[in-house]
């Protein structure tokens, strides 16, 4: 019997094999959304818990990777919606170096604050589309929505962000 068939039948060993194959990928997807190592680890486990609970609904001829990504996105979204704000990367997360001359520290803090105030569904899409530069179709698939809706959410997120920045510091939004 194939691995996915055994998983769908509730086989724990098959689930373990899938967990080990996909945990890094699921973790990497989640950490890009929540931007915190520890929380991403917890949400990875939560994602696989949801996957395990729903194993009977999984069709063995389906795409496990896409399915797990969608569940991971939902878990990360639930976390963002619960009011936790982790838009600032911890020091130990590898990130691109940004020189202080490009945008001053204070301005960056204002932008982070404004971004953190976005509603969760816009923050999630904006994080993936604008910061992580994930293709729209990939975001749409992960969220289970159309590409057109992803574009609308990105557009609205940009508009909300601009308004928030205008109220915080007009020179940032219009610079």
């Amino acid at each position: 019997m194939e691995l996915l068939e055994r998983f769908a039948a509730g086989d724990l060993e098959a689930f373990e094999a899938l967990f080990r194959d996909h945990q890094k990928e699921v973790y990497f997807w989640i950490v890009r959304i929540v931007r915190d190592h520890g929380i991403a680890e917890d949400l990875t486990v939560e994602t696989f818990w949801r996957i395990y609970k729903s194993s009977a609904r999984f069709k063995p001829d389906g795409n496990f990777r896409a399915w797990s990504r969608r569940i991971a996105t939902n878990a990360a979204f639930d976390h963002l919606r619960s009011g936790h704000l982790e838009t600032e990367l911890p020091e130990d997360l590898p990130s691109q170096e940004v020189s202080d001359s490009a945008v001053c520290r204070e301005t960056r803090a204002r932008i982070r604050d404004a971004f953190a105030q976005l509603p969760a569904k816009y923050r999630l899409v904006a994080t993936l589309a604008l910061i992580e530069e994930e293709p729209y179709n990939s975001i749409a698939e992960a969220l289970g929505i159309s590409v057109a809706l992803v574009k609308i959410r990105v557009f609205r997120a940009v508009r909300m962000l601009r308004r928030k920045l205008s109220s915080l510091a007009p020179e940032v939004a219009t610079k």
Partner: protein
Amino acid sequence: MNNEENADHLKALLKQAISPVKDAELHRDLWPQMLGKLDEQAVPVKHVPWLDWTLAAILSAVLFLFPGAIPVLLYQL
């Protein structure tokens, strides 16, 4: 500056303020944590006692052999 340029400018500012995550490796195996969660929130297995199966089999056999008993059974229910 038009809307598209504004959006691009905002995107550039955003990327400078919140850097993309690159190569965030998972440094440990999460399977032990997963096993802990499975133990903690184990789904109770619905176990049907063998006696219930036997009674169900006998009842099915009786109803199959004596279909006239079906209305009596329904009346009793």
